[in-house]
């Protein structure tokens, strides 16, 4: 028989071991589905790996997909550190995309356009995140519910925009007008889609890590998240910290949308995000809310997404497997987190 015992301390190597354990468990669990779909498990995973990380082009494609999830992962990690339950990164991403598309369509010098797109997208994301944060601080409205439901509001507002004023009058497609060519983010490697935004995302992670670990704001975010009462007693303005966290989190999610508009799609359409905002939650949890861990976690999920399409073509296993892997990874990680607080002991064994 086994039982759980409370741990007095958590070894440091758990930070690395737990996500790997969760990912390993996920791949094992999902292999059952692959077998059910009638494909060879190793073959399917093999195709997935080759197609996502097997050569330099595949790696650039994976990185292009990882970039928005690095931003949304950071957004969620920052918010969850303060226990501001921002489930609204998806809506904040869409708001950022719309705002940056609006700015990018205005003719102006390229570098200026890119900076203004980033600022506008970040501001739009922050503004959206401010809504659940304000509702919570002022009226104690549950932020999980309000931030989640706001995603639908933003999504349908975007739809109204591209079905209405922004609708392409020639083709009749529900897509926005493209941004100016000069506002397109520069491609860093000829013949790939690896754009400037990917590098910005990779730089953002250590910056956010620095902010959380080395600044007084980061300290206040951590303390507020762990014990708001002690924070308040210690002279921290808990409400102000929550609002600041929401603004930062929303801005990061908004930047995910900016990257998709400026570096990948150059316009806004209804499926500009295949759920990158929600994937950010998985990424942040796999990273154990550590901003540096967000990068490998986002790359893992991006590889699964890119690889799943190739696997689908090669083996006939539906590409939806990528969604299943994401969901399973989140659940596996939540179970794995149990081991940070508890240990398993065998009881009843003869001694």
């Amino acid at each position, binding site marked *: *028989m086994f*039982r759980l*015992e409370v741990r*007095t*301390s958590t070894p440091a190597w758990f930070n690395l071991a737990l996500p790997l354990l969760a990912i390993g468990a996920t791949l094992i669990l999902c292999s059952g589905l692959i077998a059910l779909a009638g494909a060879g498990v190793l073959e399917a995973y093999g195709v997935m790996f080759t197609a996502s990380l097997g050569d330099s082009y595949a790696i650039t494609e994976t990185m292009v997909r990882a970039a928005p999830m690095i931003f949304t992962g950071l957004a969620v990690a920052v918010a969850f550190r303060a226990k501001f339950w921002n489930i609204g990164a998806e809506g904040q991403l869409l708001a950022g995309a719309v705002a940056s598309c609006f700015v990018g369509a205005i003719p102006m010098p390229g570098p200026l356009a890119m900076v203004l797109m980033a600022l506008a997208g970040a501001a739009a994301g922050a503004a959206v995140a401010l809504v659940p944060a304000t509702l919570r601080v002022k009226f104690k409205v549950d932020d999980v519910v309000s931030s989640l439901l706001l995603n639908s509001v933003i999504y349908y507002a975007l739809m109204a925009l591209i079905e209405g004023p922004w609708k392409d009058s020639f083709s009749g497609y529900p897509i926005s007008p493209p941004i100016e060519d000069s506002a397109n983010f520069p491609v860093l490697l000829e013949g790939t889609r690896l754009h400037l935004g990917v590098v910005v995302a990779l730089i953002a992670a250590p910056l956010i890590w620095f902010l959380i670990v*080395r*600044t*007084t*704001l*980061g*300290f*206040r975010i*951590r*303390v507020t998240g*762990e*014990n708001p*009462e*002690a*924070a*308040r*007693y*210690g*002279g*921290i303005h808990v409400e102000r910290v929550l609002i600041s966290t929401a603004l930062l989190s929303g801005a990061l999610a908004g930047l995910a949308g900016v990257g998709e508009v400026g570096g990948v799609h150059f316009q806004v359409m209804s499926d500009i995000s295949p759920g990158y905002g929600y994937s950010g939650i998985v990424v942040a949890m796999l990273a154990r809310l550590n901003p540096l861990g967000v990068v490998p976690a986002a790359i893992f999920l991006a590889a699964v997404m890119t690889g799943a399409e190739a696997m689908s073509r090669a083996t006939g296993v539906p590409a939806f497997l990528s969604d299943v892997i994401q969901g399973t990874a989140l659940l596996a990680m939540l179970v794995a987190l149990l081991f940070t607080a508890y240990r398993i*002991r065998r*009881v*009843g064994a003869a*001694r």
Partner: protein
Amino acid sequence: MPLPAPLIEMRGITKRFGAVKANEAVDLSVAPGEILGLLGENGAGKTTLMNVLFGAYAPDAGEILIQGQPVRITSSADALAAGIGMVHQHFHLAPRLTVLENLLIGIPGKTGRIDRAGGLARLAEIGRQHGLTLDPNLPVSALSVGEQQRLEIVKALFRGARLLILDEPTAVLAPSEVDGLFSALRSMAAQGLGIIFISHKLNEVRALTHRCTVLRHGRVAGRVDDPANTTSSEMATLMCGHEIVPPARGPSTPGAAVLTLDGISTSKHSGTPLRDVSLAVRAGEILGIAGVSGNGQRALAEVISGTRVPDAGQMTIAGSKVSRFSPREVQALGLGRIPEDRMTTGLVTNLPLADSMVLPRIGTAAFSSGGLLKPDAIRAFAEAQINAYDIRCPGPMTRAGALSGGNLQKALLARELAFDPKVLVVSQPTRGLDIGAARFIHEKFLDMRAKGCGIIVIGEDLEELLVLCDRIAVMYEGRIVGTLDSADATVARLGLMMTGAEGHS
């Protein structure tokens, strides 16, 4: 008189947590009809030992015998089946269910039905036997703390416990309730039950128990065969390994007032509001605030600590008027603060101890500049305090929640005293601490007093206030009803004032 064969016997129990031996080769036995006191400082291994007995932990070595038969207890269900009942410090009751329903939880009735009639009869019988009467139809949420504890005891008896473990049962009780508990325990022992009584309060142990086992650092430090005729200081010496002398409060020459409250009133909050409270603490004196819990002490502590803005009145710290009543303002004026609840208000249990130690002053030049933390300074500060106050922990990066209560209180004291406060406000400074830790805290207060710090101690333990304080003010329904020099104060007189019966000024 030869004792009957032990009801329960623990032999050579060893329990390790990593490298730490929480229990090492502990022997303990309880005979039928015996009340055994289990003593030890915080962290001595009492709780671990009882958790082993109750099946929460598997021991690494040793065996448990019930009436001479070795048994294996791997869960609380096993323990209950073996006739062991435990009353924890924190009760395990379902508040919305009635007394009877709580008793019947987990008890299978015949043919899957709940046997209410049988339960009622059994409850009435237990009530008659031991004077433990309870209204079976009241919801638990309507019971007082003392009644909830009574229900926990009844619950154990209901399940056929022959050995009852009580972990600090008197910590939550009013003095009048303690007498009732003791007579019930004596009645149970008289009928052949064994009882293990865990307490820090040595006079209770001496009054109640037949025999004591004393733990220190996980081992049995000694046994007391005649507690009634053993002095508290002899027991304390066994527990601590050295003699404990109560601190002596020398004469003081109070200086100018370092904290004044003038006509402070509050409203619009839960708990008792303050009504026109005026008081002054002078440099080099300790002012006690006595009162039955819930008479405005919390609001008073909050106003002084800068976490509640009063509706009316003025406060000065070291001669400066307090205008914003924020934690940062009162700290900057020279106020040190130690909150009532270490775990919820004082510390961040999931973060490193160092973070908790710098929390109230993180924005000051000592620990940050320009919004950037000074990690080296933070670590050095925490390390220095850990050494200066002998805070037992592996280091400043240890999770604060892993420390014992006494060490946490030392850490909270250290984080304030390091900044030489002109006035210190503390609530319940030694609640839940063992003798050694309480002694340490008291000594520090007296040191600060000698250095000219004014200290205001808000507490319920009158004996502690009488030892520690130069003057004692009594609160009743949000007012200060009188202030006594401690030379003129007695427990009886303060007790009378606490009921609002007598006014002095």
